[in-house]
Protein backbone atom coordinates (compact mmCIF):
# COMPACT_ATOMS: atom_id res chain seq x y z
CA UNK A 1 0.00 0.00 0.00
CA UNK A 2 2.66 2.42 1.08
CA UNK A 3 4.96 1.47 -1.76
CA UNK A 4 2.10 1.97 -4.15
CA UNK A 5 1.57 5.49 -2.89
CA UNK A 6 5.24 6.14 -3.16
CA UNK A 7 5.19 4.91 -6.73
CA UNK A 8 2.44 7.38 -7.58
CA UNK A 9 3.88 10.27 -5.60
CA UNK A 10 7.45 9.71 -6.75
CA UNK A 11 6.41 9.92 -10.39
CA UNK A 12 3.92 12.74 -9.97
CA UNK A 13 5.07 14.83 -12.95
CA UNK A 14 4.80 11.78 -15.19
CA UNK A 15 1.28 10.98 -14.00
CA UNK A 16 0.23 14.54 -14.68
CA UNK A 17 1.89 14.33 -18.08
CA UNK A 18 0.01 11.13 -18.87
CA UNK A 19 -3.34 12.57 -17.72
CA UNK A 20 -2.86 15.76 -19.74
CA UNK A 21 -1.66 13.88 -22.79
CA UNK A 22 -4.56 11.44 -22.76
CA UNK A 23 -7.17 14.12 -22.17
CA UNK A 24 -5.75 16.14 -25.06
CA UNK A 25 -5.75 13.12 -27.33
CA UNK A 26 -9.28 12.23 -26.21
CA UNK A 27 -10.54 15.71 -27.06
CA UNK A 28 -8.96 15.53 -30.51
CA UNK A 29 -10.55 12.17 -31.24
CA UNK A 30 -13.96 12.63 -29.65
CA UNK A 31 -14.98 16.20 -30.42
CA UNK A 32 -16.57 17.08 -33.74
CA UNK A 33 -16.03 20.82 -33.45
CA UNK A 34 -12.87 21.77 -35.30
CA UNK A 35 -11.90 24.51 -32.85
CA UNK A 36 -12.23 22.08 -29.96
CA UNK A 37 -10.01 19.70 -31.89
CA UNK A 38 -7.33 22.40 -32.11
CA UNK A 39 -7.70 23.07 -28.38
CA UNK A 40 -7.27 19.35 -27.70
CA UNK A 41 -4.23 19.30 -29.91
CA UNK A 42 -2.76 22.17 -27.93
CA UNK A 43 -3.34 20.38 -24.63
CA UNK A 44 -1.74 17.28 -26.10
CA UNK A 45 1.32 19.25 -27.20
CA UNK A 46 1.55 21.15 -23.93
CA UNK A 47 1.67 17.88 -22.01
CA UNK A 48 4.80 17.00 -23.95
CA UNK A 49 6.36 20.36 -23.10
CA UNK A 50 5.71 19.66 -19.41
CA UNK A 51 7.24 16.23 -19.80
CA UNK A 52 10.43 17.67 -21.26
CA UNK A 53 10.69 20.35 -18.58
CA UNK A 54 10.27 17.72 -15.86
CA UNK A 55 13.11 15.65 -17.35
CA UNK A 56 15.46 18.61 -17.08
CA UNK A 57 14.62 19.50 -13.49
CA UNK A 58 17.19 18.78 -10.80
CA UNK A 59 16.13 18.86 -7.17
CA UNK A 60 17.50 22.11 -5.73
CA UNK A 61 19.03 23.08 -9.06
CA UNK A 62 19.33 26.70 -10.13
CA UNK A 63 19.17 28.32 -13.51
CA UNK A 64 22.17 27.34 -15.66
CA UNK A 65 23.86 30.75 -15.74
CA UNK A 66 27.38 31.68 -14.77
CA UNK A 67 27.44 32.59 -11.09
CA UNK A 68 29.96 34.64 -9.14
CA UNK A 69 33.43 33.52 -10.19
CA UNK A 70 34.81 33.54 -6.64
CA UNK A 71 32.28 30.90 -5.56
CA UNK A 72 33.12 27.30 -6.19
CA UNK A 73 31.09 26.81 -9.33
CA UNK A 74 31.66 23.11 -9.65
CA UNK A 75 29.53 22.51 -6.57
CA UNK A 76 26.53 24.38 -7.96
CA UNK A 77 23.70 22.14 -9.05
CA UNK A 78 21.75 23.45 -12.00
CA UNK A 79 18.84 22.20 -14.05
CA UNK A 80 19.59 20.83 -17.50
CA UNK A 81 18.98 23.69 -19.94
CA UNK A 82 18.84 21.55 -23.07
CA UNK A 83 15.22 20.32 -22.67
CA UNK A 84 14.14 23.92 -22.20
CA UNK A 85 15.82 24.92 -25.44
CA UNK A 86 14.26 21.98 -27.27
CA UNK A 87 10.85 22.88 -25.93
CA UNK A 88 11.25 26.50 -26.96
CA UNK A 89 11.59 25.17 -30.50
CA UNK A 90 8.67 22.79 -30.04
CA UNK A 91 6.50 25.63 -28.69
CA UNK A 92 7.22 27.67 -31.80
CA UNK A 93 6.28 24.69 -33.94
CA UNK A 94 3.11 24.36 -31.87
CA UNK A 95 2.22 28.01 -32.39
CA UNK A 96 2.72 27.67 -36.13
CA UNK A 97 0.52 24.56 -36.16
CA UNK A 98 -2.20 26.27 -34.16
CA UNK A 99 -2.14 29.38 -36.32
CA UNK A 100 -2.30 27.29 -39.49
CA UNK A 101 -5.10 25.13 -38.06
CA UNK A 102 -7.14 28.19 -37.09
CA UNK A 103 -6.52 29.74 -40.51
CA UNK A 104 -7.82 26.55 -42.12
CA UNK A 105 -10.85 26.65 -39.83
CA UNK A 106 -11.61 30.22 -40.92
CA UNK A 107 -11.38 29.15 -44.55
CA UNK A 108 -13.55 26.12 -43.86
CA UNK A 109 -16.09 28.31 -42.11
CA UNK A 110 -16.15 30.66 -45.09
CA UNK A 111 -16.63 27.83 -47.56
CA UNK A 112 -18.91 25.50 -45.60
CA UNK A 113 -20.45 27.95 -43.10
CA UNK A 114 -19.98 25.47 -40.29
CA UNK A 115 -17.14 24.22 -38.12
CA UNK A 116 -18.79 20.93 -37.12
CA UNK A 117 -17.09 17.91 -38.60
CA UNK A 118 -20.37 15.99 -39.10
CA UNK A 119 -21.92 18.82 -41.11
CA UNK A 120 -18.78 19.16 -43.18
CA UNK A 121 -18.80 15.47 -43.96
CA UNK A 122 -22.43 15.68 -45.00
CA UNK A 123 -21.67 18.62 -47.29
CA UNK A 124 -18.67 16.76 -48.69
CA UNK A 125 -20.92 13.78 -49.43
CA UNK A 126 -23.32 16.11 -51.25
CA UNK A 127 -20.40 17.51 -53.21
CA UNK A 128 -19.31 14.02 -54.15
CA UNK A 129 -22.77 13.09 -55.44
CA UNK A 130 -23.04 16.35 -57.30
CA UNK A 131 -19.65 15.84 -58.95
CA UNK A 132 -20.46 12.24 -59.73
CA UNK A 133 -23.62 13.35 -61.49
CA UNK A 134 -22.05 16.23 -63.33
CA UNK A 135 -18.79 14.35 -63.71
CA UNK A 136 -17.10 17.63 -64.41
CA UNK A 137 -14.79 19.45 -62.10
CA UNK A 138 -15.62 23.04 -61.40
CA UNK A 139 -13.51 25.21 -63.59
CA UNK A 140 -11.41 27.86 -62.01
CA UNK A 141 -13.35 31.05 -62.53
Amino acid at each position, binding site marked *: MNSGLNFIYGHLPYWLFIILMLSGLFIVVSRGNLIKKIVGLNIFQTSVFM*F*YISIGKMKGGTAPILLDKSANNSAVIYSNP*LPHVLILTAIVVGIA*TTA*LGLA*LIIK*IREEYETVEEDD*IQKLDQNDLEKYNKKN*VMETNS
Partner: protein
Amino acid sequence: MASEIKQGALELVNHLPILQVITPMLIAPILVVFNNKTLSWLLSFVGALACLFISILLIQAVSDGSILTYYLGGWAPPIGIEYRIDAANAILLLLISIISAIVLIFSYSSLHAEIPEEKHTLFYSCFLLCLTGLLGVVATADIFNVFVFLEISSLSTYVLVAQGAYLDRRALSASFNYLIMGTIGATFFVIGIGYIYMATGSLNMMDIAERASQLGDNRTIQAGFAFIVVGMGLKLAMVPLHVWLPNAYTFAPTVVTCFLAATATKVALYVLIRFVFSVFNYEDSFVNELFFLLLMPLAVIAMIAASVIAIFKQNLKKLLAYSSLAQIGYMLLGLSLMSQKGLASSLVHMVNHGFTKAALFMSLGAFMLNTKNVYIKSLRGLGKSMPFTSAAFLIGGLSLIGVPGTAGFISKWLLLEAALETGYWLVAILIIVSSLFAVIYIWKIVEVLYFSESSESYDEVSVLTLMPVWILALFCIFLGINTSLTVDVANMATEILFK
Protein backbone atom coordinates in the same frame (compact mmCIF):
# COMPACT_ATOMS: atom_id res chain seq x y z
CA MET B 1 34.19 23.84 -29.31
CA ALA B 2 36.03 22.04 -32.04
CA SER B 3 39.38 23.72 -31.78
CA GLU B 4 41.00 21.00 -33.86
CA ILE B 5 39.29 22.36 -36.95
CA LYS B 6 41.63 24.89 -38.49
CA GLN B 7 40.14 28.33 -38.67
CA GLY B 8 38.88 29.25 -42.05
CA ALA B 9 40.27 26.09 -43.57
CA LEU B 10 37.10 24.69 -45.12
CA GLU B 11 36.74 24.65 -48.87
CA LEU B 12 33.38 25.05 -50.54
CA VAL B 13 33.40 21.30 -51.18
CA ASN B 14 33.33 20.59 -47.46
CA HIS B 15 30.12 22.56 -47.15
CA LEU B 16 28.06 20.37 -49.47
CA PRO B 17 25.91 18.73 -46.74
CA ILE B 18 24.72 22.07 -45.39
CA LEU B 19 24.46 23.78 -48.80
CA GLN B 20 22.11 21.01 -49.84
CA VAL B 21 19.69 22.03 -47.12
CA ILE B 22 20.06 25.81 -47.00
CA THR B 23 19.95 26.53 -50.73
CA PRO B 24 16.14 26.29 -50.92
CA MET B 25 15.84 27.88 -47.48
CA LEU B 26 17.80 30.93 -48.67
CA ILE B 27 15.73 31.32 -51.80
CA ALA B 28 12.31 31.03 -50.14
CA PRO B 29 12.41 34.42 -48.34
CA ILE B 30 13.94 36.12 -51.40
CA LEU B 31 10.86 35.12 -53.39
CA VAL B 32 8.59 36.76 -50.85
CA VAL B 33 10.62 39.96 -50.91
CA PHE B 34 10.50 40.33 -54.70
CA ASN B 35 6.97 38.97 -55.12
CA ASN B 36 7.11 38.45 -58.87
CA LYS B 37 5.44 35.40 -60.42
CA THR B 38 7.94 34.62 -63.19
CA LEU B 39 10.97 35.51 -61.12
CA SER B 40 9.69 33.24 -58.35
CA TRP B 41 9.45 30.31 -60.69
CA LEU B 42 12.86 31.01 -62.16
CA LEU B 43 14.56 31.35 -58.78
CA SER B 44 12.90 28.21 -57.39
CA PHE B 45 13.91 26.30 -60.47
CA VAL B 46 17.48 27.53 -60.21
CA GLY B 47 17.43 26.55 -56.53
CA ALA B 48 16.13 23.09 -57.32
CA LEU B 49 18.80 22.67 -60.00
CA ALA B 50 21.48 23.76 -57.51
CA CYS B 51 20.13 21.16 -55.05
CA LEU B 52 20.24 18.55 -57.79
CA PHE B 53 23.83 19.47 -58.63
CA ILE B 54 24.86 19.29 -54.96
CA SER B 55 23.12 15.97 -54.42
CA ILE B 56 24.90 14.51 -57.47
CA LEU B 57 28.23 15.66 -56.03
CA LEU B 58 27.27 14.15 -52.68
CA ILE B 59 26.29 10.79 -54.08
CA GLN B 60 29.55 10.66 -56.00
CA ALA B 61 31.42 11.39 -52.79
CA VAL B 62 29.73 8.69 -50.76
CA SER B 63 29.28 5.99 -53.40
CA ASP B 64 32.55 4.37 -52.32
CA GLY B 65 31.10 3.75 -48.87
CA SER B 66 32.61 6.77 -47.17
CA ILE B 67 30.66 9.02 -44.82
CA LEU B 68 30.61 12.81 -44.94
CA THR B 69 30.10 14.67 -41.69
CA TYR B 70 29.52 18.33 -41.06
CA TYR B 71 29.45 20.11 -37.72
CA LEU B 72 27.02 23.01 -37.61
CA GLY B 73 28.61 26.12 -36.19
CA GLY B 74 31.83 24.21 -35.56
CA TRP B 75 30.45 22.44 -32.49
CA ALA B 76 31.52 18.80 -32.29
CA PRO B 77 28.79 16.10 -32.28
CA PRO B 78 27.63 15.20 -28.80
CA ILE B 79 27.05 18.90 -28.12
CA GLY B 80 26.46 20.33 -31.54
CA ILE B 81 24.27 19.32 -34.45
CA GLU B 82 25.91 16.98 -36.91
CA TYR B 83 24.97 16.43 -40.54
CA ARG B 84 25.93 13.03 -41.76
CA ILE B 85 25.70 11.88 -45.35
CA ASP B 86 26.15 8.24 -46.27
CA ALA B 87 24.91 6.13 -49.16
CA ALA B 88 21.47 5.63 -47.57
CA ASN B 89 20.56 9.27 -47.38
CA ALA B 90 22.52 10.45 -50.40
CA ILE B 91 20.23 8.41 -52.63
CA LEU B 92 17.17 9.97 -51.02
CA LEU B 93 18.63 13.47 -51.33
CA LEU B 94 19.11 12.74 -55.02
CA LEU B 95 15.53 11.48 -55.37
CA ILE B 96 14.05 14.54 -53.65
CA SER B 97 16.18 16.96 -55.67
CA ILE B 98 15.42 15.36 -59.03
CA ILE B 99 11.70 15.17 -58.33
CA SER B 100 11.56 18.77 -57.14
CA ALA B 101 13.35 20.03 -60.26
CA ILE B 102 11.06 18.05 -62.58
CA VAL B 103 7.93 19.07 -60.69
CA LEU B 104 8.96 22.72 -60.99
CA ILE B 105 9.27 22.41 -64.78
CA PHE B 106 5.76 20.98 -64.81
CA SER B 107 4.40 23.67 -62.53
CA TYR B 108 5.48 26.43 -64.93
CA SER B 109 2.91 25.38 -67.48
CA SER B 110 0.24 23.88 -65.25
CA LEU B 111 0.08 25.83 -62.02
CA HIS B 112 -2.05 28.66 -63.41
CA ALA B 113 -4.84 26.15 -64.03
CA GLU B 114 -5.10 25.35 -60.35
CA ILE B 115 -3.96 28.37 -58.33
CA PRO B 116 -4.72 32.06 -58.91
CA GLU B 117 -1.69 33.93 -60.17
CA GLU B 118 -1.27 36.31 -57.23
CA LYS B 119 -0.64 33.32 -54.97
CA HIS B 120 2.13 31.84 -57.09
CA THR B 121 4.98 33.53 -55.23
CA LEU B 122 3.80 32.29 -51.87
CA PHE B 123 3.16 28.87 -53.38
CA TYR B 124 6.74 28.56 -54.64
CA SER B 125 8.07 29.89 -51.36
CA CYS B 126 6.11 27.25 -49.48
CA PHE B 127 7.25 24.60 -51.93
CA LEU B 128 10.88 25.53 -51.29
CA LEU B 129 10.34 25.40 -47.52
CA CYS B 130 8.83 21.95 -47.92
CA LEU B 131 11.88 20.96 -49.96
CA THR B 132 14.16 22.35 -47.24
CA GLY B 133 12.34 20.33 -44.62
CA LEU B 134 12.52 17.09 -46.55
CA LEU B 135 16.20 17.52 -47.40
CA GLY B 136 16.96 18.48 -43.81
CA VAL B 137 15.24 15.44 -42.33
CA VAL B 138 17.34 13.23 -44.56
CA ALA B 139 20.66 14.99 -44.04
CA THR B 140 20.74 15.50 -40.30
CA ALA B 141 22.09 13.11 -37.67
CA ASP B 142 20.52 14.88 -34.72
CA ILE B 143 17.18 13.44 -33.66
CA PHE B 144 15.61 16.68 -32.50
CA ASN B 145 16.73 18.32 -35.71
CA VAL B 146 14.81 15.57 -37.50
CA PHE B 147 11.66 16.69 -35.68
CA VAL B 148 12.19 20.35 -36.53
CA PHE B 149 12.75 19.70 -40.23
CA LEU B 150 9.87 17.23 -40.28
CA GLU B 151 7.58 19.95 -38.98
CA ILE B 152 8.95 22.51 -41.45
CA SER B 153 8.09 20.16 -44.29
CA SER B 154 4.76 19.10 -42.78
CA LEU B 155 3.52 22.61 -42.04
CA SER B 156 4.32 23.75 -45.55
CA THR B 157 2.71 20.58 -46.88
CA TYR B 158 -0.57 21.39 -45.11
CA VAL B 159 -0.52 24.82 -46.74
CA LEU B 160 0.25 23.34 -50.16
CA VAL B 161 -2.55 20.78 -49.86
CA ALA B 162 -5.02 23.48 -48.85
CA GLN B 163 -4.22 25.36 -52.08
CA GLY B 164 -6.41 22.83 -53.87
CA ALA B 165 -9.36 24.73 -52.39
CA TYR B 166 -9.48 27.03 -55.41
CA LEU B 167 -10.80 24.10 -57.41
CA ASP B 168 -12.55 22.05 -54.76
CA ARG B 169 -13.34 23.11 -51.22
CA ARG B 170 -12.85 19.59 -49.92
CA ALA B 171 -9.11 20.34 -50.03
CA LEU B 172 -9.63 22.39 -46.87
CA SER B 173 -11.08 19.59 -44.78
CA ALA B 174 -8.52 17.18 -46.24
CA SER B 175 -5.73 19.55 -45.24
CA PHE B 176 -7.22 20.04 -41.78
CA ASN B 177 -7.43 16.29 -41.19
CA TYR B 178 -3.87 15.96 -42.40
CA LEU B 179 -2.85 18.71 -39.98
CA ILE B 180 -4.49 16.98 -37.01
CA MET B 181 -3.09 13.56 -37.85
CA GLY B 182 0.33 14.90 -38.80
CA THR B 183 0.64 16.92 -35.61
CA ILE B 184 -0.37 13.97 -33.46
CA GLY B 185 2.27 11.94 -35.30
CA ALA B 186 4.92 14.60 -34.79
CA THR B 187 4.04 14.93 -31.11
CA PHE B 188 4.32 11.16 -30.62
CA PHE B 189 7.69 11.44 -32.28
CA VAL B 190 8.74 14.16 -29.83
CA ILE B 191 7.61 12.04 -26.89
CA GLY B 192 9.75 9.24 -28.26
CA ILE B 193 12.72 11.58 -28.52
CA GLY B 194 12.05 12.69 -24.95
CA TYR B 195 12.19 9.10 -23.72
CA ILE B 196 15.43 8.48 -25.57
CA TYR B 197 16.95 11.67 -24.23
CA MET B 198 15.80 10.72 -20.73
CA ALA B 199 17.53 7.35 -20.93
CA THR B 200 20.71 8.31 -22.79
CA GLY B 201 21.15 12.05 -22.31
CA SER B 202 22.10 12.58 -25.92
CA LEU B 203 20.48 13.68 -29.15
CA ASN B 204 23.14 12.61 -31.63
CA MET B 205 22.28 9.38 -33.42
CA MET B 206 25.71 7.78 -33.20
CA ASP B 207 26.13 8.85 -29.60
CA ILE B 208 22.74 7.43 -28.63
CA ALA B 209 23.49 4.14 -30.33
CA GLU B 210 26.70 3.86 -28.33
CA ARG B 211 25.13 4.79 -25.01
CA ALA B 212 22.04 2.66 -25.55
CA SER B 213 24.13 -0.42 -26.24
CA GLN B 214 25.73 0.02 -22.81
CA LEU B 215 22.33 0.31 -21.16
CA GLY B 216 21.19 -3.03 -22.55
CA ASP B 217 17.52 -3.94 -22.23
CA ASN B 218 16.00 -0.61 -21.24
CA ARG B 219 12.24 -0.08 -20.91
CA THR B 220 12.44 3.66 -21.43
CA ILE B 221 14.22 3.28 -24.74
CA GLN B 222 11.74 0.62 -25.83
CA ALA B 223 8.82 2.90 -24.98
CA GLY B 224 10.52 5.68 -26.91
CA PHE B 225 10.94 3.38 -29.88
CA ALA B 226 7.26 2.44 -29.77
CA PHE B 227 6.27 6.11 -29.75
CA ILE B 228 8.57 6.83 -32.68
CA VAL B 229 7.17 3.92 -34.70
CA VAL B 230 3.61 5.15 -34.15
CA GLY B 231 4.54 8.76 -34.89
CA MET B 232 6.35 7.89 -38.08
CA GLY B 233 3.57 5.43 -38.92
CA LEU B 234 1.20 8.39 -39.00
CA LYS B 235 3.52 10.42 -41.20
CA LEU B 236 4.25 7.61 -43.63
CA ALA B 237 0.61 6.43 -43.77
CA MET B 238 1.09 2.95 -42.37
CA VAL B 239 -2.22 1.26 -42.91
CA PRO B 240 -4.44 1.83 -39.90
CA LEU B 241 -3.03 5.35 -39.64
CA HIS B 242 -3.42 6.24 -43.30
CA VAL B 243 -6.79 8.01 -43.34
CA TRP B 244 -5.35 11.42 -44.12
CA LEU B 245 -3.55 10.31 -47.26
CA PRO B 246 -6.23 9.56 -49.89
CA ASN B 247 -8.08 12.86 -49.43
CA ALA B 248 -4.93 14.93 -49.13
CA TYR B 249 -3.53 13.50 -52.36
CA THR B 250 -6.85 13.75 -54.17
CA PHE B 251 -7.66 17.38 -53.47
CA ALA B 252 -4.17 18.89 -53.46
CA PRO B 253 -3.04 20.62 -56.67
CA THR B 254 -1.48 18.10 -59.05
CA VAL B 255 1.95 19.64 -58.69
CA VAL B 256 1.79 19.13 -54.95
CA THR B 257 0.40 15.62 -55.21
CA CYS B 258 3.23 14.69 -57.55
CA PHE B 259 5.84 16.03 -55.19
CA LEU B 260 4.32 14.55 -52.05
CA ALA B 261 3.61 11.13 -53.48
CA ALA B 262 7.18 10.85 -54.65
CA THR B 263 8.95 12.20 -51.57
CA ALA B 264 7.07 12.92 -48.34
CA THR B 265 6.08 9.41 -47.28
CA LYS B 266 9.47 8.08 -48.34
CA VAL B 267 11.24 10.54 -46.12
CA ALA B 268 9.14 9.46 -43.13
CA LEU B 269 9.98 5.85 -43.92
CA TYR B 270 13.64 6.78 -44.18
CA VAL B 271 13.44 8.28 -40.67
CA LEU B 272 12.03 5.00 -39.40
CA ILE B 273 14.81 3.04 -41.11
CA ARG B 274 17.45 5.41 -39.77
CA PHE B 275 16.10 5.06 -36.24
CA VAL B 276 15.91 1.29 -36.40
CA PHE B 277 19.43 0.82 -37.70
CA SER B 278 21.45 3.83 -36.57
CA VAL B 279 19.82 4.71 -33.26
CA PHE B 280 18.39 1.45 -31.94
CA ASN B 281 19.91 -1.94 -32.15
CA TYR B 282 18.23 -3.82 -34.96
CA GLU B 283 19.25 -7.15 -33.43
CA ASP B 284 17.33 -6.25 -30.30
CA SER B 285 14.57 -8.79 -29.73
CA PHE B 286 12.07 -6.02 -28.94
CA VAL B 287 12.65 -4.30 -32.26
CA ASN B 288 12.51 -7.62 -34.10
CA GLU B 289 9.29 -8.69 -32.44
CA LEU B 290 7.69 -5.32 -33.09
CA PHE B 291 8.57 -5.56 -36.75
CA PHE B 292 7.58 -9.17 -37.14
CA LEU B 293 4.33 -9.08 -35.16
CA LEU B 294 3.17 -5.58 -35.99
CA LEU B 295 4.71 -4.07 -39.08
CA MET B 296 4.75 -7.12 -41.31
CA PRO B 297 1.03 -7.94 -40.97
CA LEU B 298 0.16 -4.27 -41.41
CA ALA B 299 2.35 -4.05 -44.49
CA VAL B 300 0.69 -7.11 -46.01
CA ILE B 301 -2.78 -5.77 -45.20
CA ALA B 302 -1.83 -2.47 -46.84
CA MET B 303 -0.60 -4.25 -49.96
CA ILE B 304 -3.77 -6.24 -50.44
CA ALA B 305 -6.53 -4.03 -49.02
CA ALA B 306 -5.38 -0.76 -50.57
CA SER B 307 -4.97 -2.41 -53.98
CA VAL B 308 -8.49 -3.84 -53.78
CA ILE B 309 -9.94 -0.47 -52.80
CA ALA B 310 -8.04 1.18 -55.66
CA ILE B 311 -9.81 -1.08 -58.16
CA PHE B 312 -13.20 0.37 -57.26
CA LYS B 313 -12.26 4.04 -57.32
CA GLN B 314 -13.57 6.20 -60.15
CA ASN B 315 -11.61 9.29 -59.14
CA LEU B 316 -8.20 8.71 -60.69
CA LYS B 317 -6.25 10.74 -58.15
CA LYS B 318 -7.86 8.75 -55.37
CA LEU B 319 -7.13 5.52 -57.23
CA LEU B 320 -3.46 6.40 -57.44
CA ALA B 321 -3.46 7.53 -53.80
CA TYR B 322 -4.70 4.12 -52.68
CA SER B 323 -2.14 2.50 -54.92
CA SER B 324 0.48 4.61 -53.11
CA LEU B 325 -0.73 3.11 -49.83
CA ALA B 326 -0.20 -0.36 -51.27
CA GLN B 327 3.30 0.58 -52.44
CA ILE B 328 4.12 1.93 -48.97
CA GLY B 329 3.12 -1.55 -47.84
CA TYR B 330 5.83 -3.04 -50.09
CA MET B 331 8.44 -0.71 -48.65
CA LEU B 332 7.44 -1.47 -45.07
CA LEU B 333 7.44 -5.16 -45.86
CA GLY B 334 10.99 -4.98 -47.14
CA LEU B 335 12.01 -3.24 -43.94
CA SER B 336 10.13 -5.65 -41.67
CA LEU B 337 11.92 -8.66 -43.17
CA MET B 338 14.95 -7.39 -41.21
CA SER B 339 17.43 -8.76 -43.71
CA GLN B 340 20.00 -6.98 -45.84
CA LYS B 341 18.18 -7.90 -49.02
CA GLY B 342 14.85 -6.80 -47.62
CA LEU B 343 16.18 -3.42 -46.63
CA ALA B 344 17.91 -2.99 -49.99
CA SER B 345 14.64 -3.77 -51.78
CA SER B 346 12.90 -1.25 -49.56
CA LEU B 347 15.40 1.48 -50.44
CA VAL B 348 15.30 0.69 -54.15
CA HIS B 349 11.52 0.65 -54.12
CA MET B 350 11.47 4.08 -52.48
CA VAL B 351 13.38 5.52 -55.41
CA ASN B 352 11.65 3.52 -58.12
CA HIS B 353 8.18 4.11 -56.78
CA GLY B 354 9.00 7.80 -56.37
CA PHE B 355 9.65 8.13 -60.10
CA THR B 356 6.80 5.83 -61.06
CA LYS B 357 4.14 7.57 -59.00
CA ALA B 358 5.40 11.00 -60.00
CA ALA B 359 5.15 9.98 -63.67
CA LEU B 360 1.60 8.70 -63.17
CA PHE B 361 0.35 11.71 -61.23
CA MET B 362 2.05 14.10 -63.63
CA SER B 363 0.60 12.55 -66.76
CA LEU B 364 -2.75 12.59 -64.99
CA GLY B 365 -2.15 16.28 -64.37
CA ALA B 366 -1.45 16.75 -68.08
CA PHE B 367 -4.77 15.05 -68.92
CA MET B 368 -6.50 17.27 -66.41
CA LEU B 369 -5.14 20.40 -68.06
CA ASN B 370 -7.32 19.48 -71.04
CA THR B 371 -10.26 17.63 -69.56
CA LYS B 372 -10.60 19.63 -66.30
CA ASN B 373 -11.76 16.39 -64.76
CA VAL B 374 -10.26 13.65 -62.62
CA TYR B 375 -12.83 10.94 -63.31
CA ILE B 376 -11.97 7.87 -65.30
CA LYS B 377 -14.71 8.43 -67.88
CA SER B 378 -13.12 11.69 -68.96
CA LEU B 379 -10.12 9.81 -70.34
CA ARG B 380 -12.17 8.13 -73.08
CA GLY B 381 -10.22 7.88 -76.27
CA LEU B 382 -7.45 10.18 -75.12
CA GLY B 383 -4.96 7.56 -76.32
CA LYS B 384 -5.57 8.87 -79.82
CA SER B 385 -5.85 12.60 -79.23
CA MET B 386 -3.10 12.84 -76.61
CA PRO B 387 -0.74 10.02 -77.66
CA PHE B 388 2.41 11.23 -75.90
CA THR B 389 0.86 11.82 -72.49
CA SER B 390 -1.00 8.54 -72.75
CA ALA B 391 2.19 6.68 -73.61
CA ALA B 392 3.93 8.20 -70.59
CA PHE B 393 1.02 7.16 -68.41
CA LEU B 394 1.23 3.64 -69.84
CA ILE B 395 4.94 3.41 -69.03
CA GLY B 396 4.28 4.59 -65.49
CA GLY B 397 1.47 2.08 -65.16
CA LEU B 398 3.65 -0.78 -66.39
CA SER B 399 6.31 0.23 -63.92
CA LEU B 400 3.73 0.29 -61.13
CA ILE B 401 2.66 -3.24 -62.01
CA GLY B 402 6.26 -4.37 -62.23
CA VAL B 403 6.63 -5.46 -65.83
CA PRO B 404 10.20 -6.53 -66.70
CA GLY B 405 12.21 -3.69 -68.22
CA THR B 406 10.70 -1.07 -65.96
CA ALA B 407 11.82 0.28 -62.61
CA GLY B 408 9.01 -1.38 -60.67
CA PHE B 409 10.18 -4.82 -61.75
CA ILE B 410 13.61 -4.42 -60.20
CA SER B 411 12.39 -3.51 -56.74
CA LYS B 412 9.57 -6.03 -56.68
CA TRP B 413 11.95 -8.75 -57.81
CA LEU B 414 14.36 -7.81 -55.03
CA LEU B 415 11.51 -7.88 -52.52
CA LEU B 416 10.37 -11.31 -53.73
CA GLU B 417 13.91 -12.62 -53.48
CA ALA B 418 14.22 -11.20 -49.97
CA ALA B 419 10.92 -12.73 -48.87
CA LEU B 420 11.85 -16.13 -50.26
CA GLU B 421 15.34 -15.92 -48.80
CA THR B 422 13.93 -15.40 -45.31
CA GLY B 423 11.39 -18.18 -45.90
CA TYR B 424 8.17 -16.18 -45.95
CA TRP B 425 6.80 -17.84 -49.07
CA LEU B 426 3.23 -16.90 -48.15
CA VAL B 427 4.26 -13.25 -48.13
CA ALA B 428 5.89 -13.75 -51.52
CA ILE B 429 2.63 -15.09 -52.92
CA LEU B 430 0.75 -12.12 -51.50
CA ILE B 431 3.20 -9.73 -53.18
CA ILE B 432 2.33 -11.32 -56.51
CA VAL B 433 -1.40 -11.19 -55.73
CA SER B 434 -1.13 -7.51 -54.93
CA SER B 435 0.71 -6.93 -58.22
CA LEU B 436 -2.13 -8.69 -60.02
CA PHE B 437 -4.58 -6.26 -58.44
CA ALA B 438 -2.36 -3.48 -59.74
CA VAL B 439 -2.75 -4.99 -63.22
CA ILE B 440 -6.52 -4.74 -62.84
CA TYR B 441 -6.69 -1.08 -61.89
CA ILE B 442 -4.07 0.01 -64.38
CA TRP B 443 -5.77 -1.99 -67.14
CA LYS B 444 -9.05 -0.33 -66.23
CA ILE B 445 -7.49 3.04 -67.06
CA VAL B 446 -5.57 1.83 -70.11
CA GLU B 447 -8.76 0.33 -71.54
CA VAL B 448 -10.56 3.64 -71.26
CA LEU B 449 -7.58 5.46 -72.73
CA TYR B 450 -7.00 3.32 -75.79
CA PHE B 451 -10.02 1.13 -76.45
CA SER B 452 -13.02 3.36 -76.15
CA GLU B 453 -14.42 5.96 -78.46
CA SER B 454 -14.39 9.57 -77.46
CA SER B 455 -17.07 12.11 -78.12
CA GLU B 456 -14.68 14.99 -77.56
CA SER B 457 -11.19 15.35 -78.87
CA TYR B 458 -8.43 17.40 -77.29
CA ASP B 459 -5.13 18.75 -78.49
CA GLU B 460 -1.89 17.34 -77.12
CA VAL B 461 -0.52 19.45 -74.26
CA SER B 462 2.39 21.79 -74.87
CA VAL B 463 5.97 20.57 -75.16
CA LEU B 464 6.89 22.24 -71.88
CA THR B 465 4.28 20.13 -70.09
CA LEU B 466 5.24 16.98 -71.93
CA MET B 467 8.93 17.32 -71.18
CA PRO B 468 8.79 16.69 -67.39
CA VAL B 469 6.27 13.90 -67.88
CA TRP B 470 8.55 12.17 -70.33
CA ILE B 471 11.66 12.73 -68.23
CA LEU B 472 9.94 10.82 -65.44
CA ALA B 473 8.69 8.11 -67.81
CA LEU B 474 12.21 7.68 -69.21
CA PHE B 475 13.55 7.44 -65.67
CA CYS B 476 11.07 4.58 -65.09
CA ILE B 477 12.61 2.71 -68.02
CA PHE B 478 16.19 3.76 -67.35
CA LEU B 479 16.07 2.55 -63.74
CA GLY B 480 14.59 -0.72 -64.99
CA ILE B 481 17.52 -1.33 -67.33
CA ASN B 482 20.46 0.29 -65.59
CA THR B 483 20.40 -0.76 -61.96
CA SER B 484 23.86 0.47 -61.05
CA LEU B 485 22.57 3.70 -59.58
CA THR B 486 19.82 2.26 -57.42
CA VAL B 487 20.70 -1.31 -56.52
CA ASP B 488 24.43 -0.79 -56.01
CA VAL B 489 23.96 2.30 -53.88
CA ALA B 490 21.20 0.56 -51.91
CA ASN B 491 23.49 -2.41 -51.26
CA MET B 492 26.19 -0.02 -50.11
CA ALA B 493 23.65 1.70 -47.87
CA THR B 494 22.47 -1.54 -46.30
CA GLU B 495 26.04 -2.52 -45.57
CA ILE B 496 26.56 0.76 -43.74
CA LEU B 497 23.25 0.46 -41.89
CA PHE B 498 23.80 -3.17 -40.88
CA LYS B 499 27.31 -2.49 -39.61
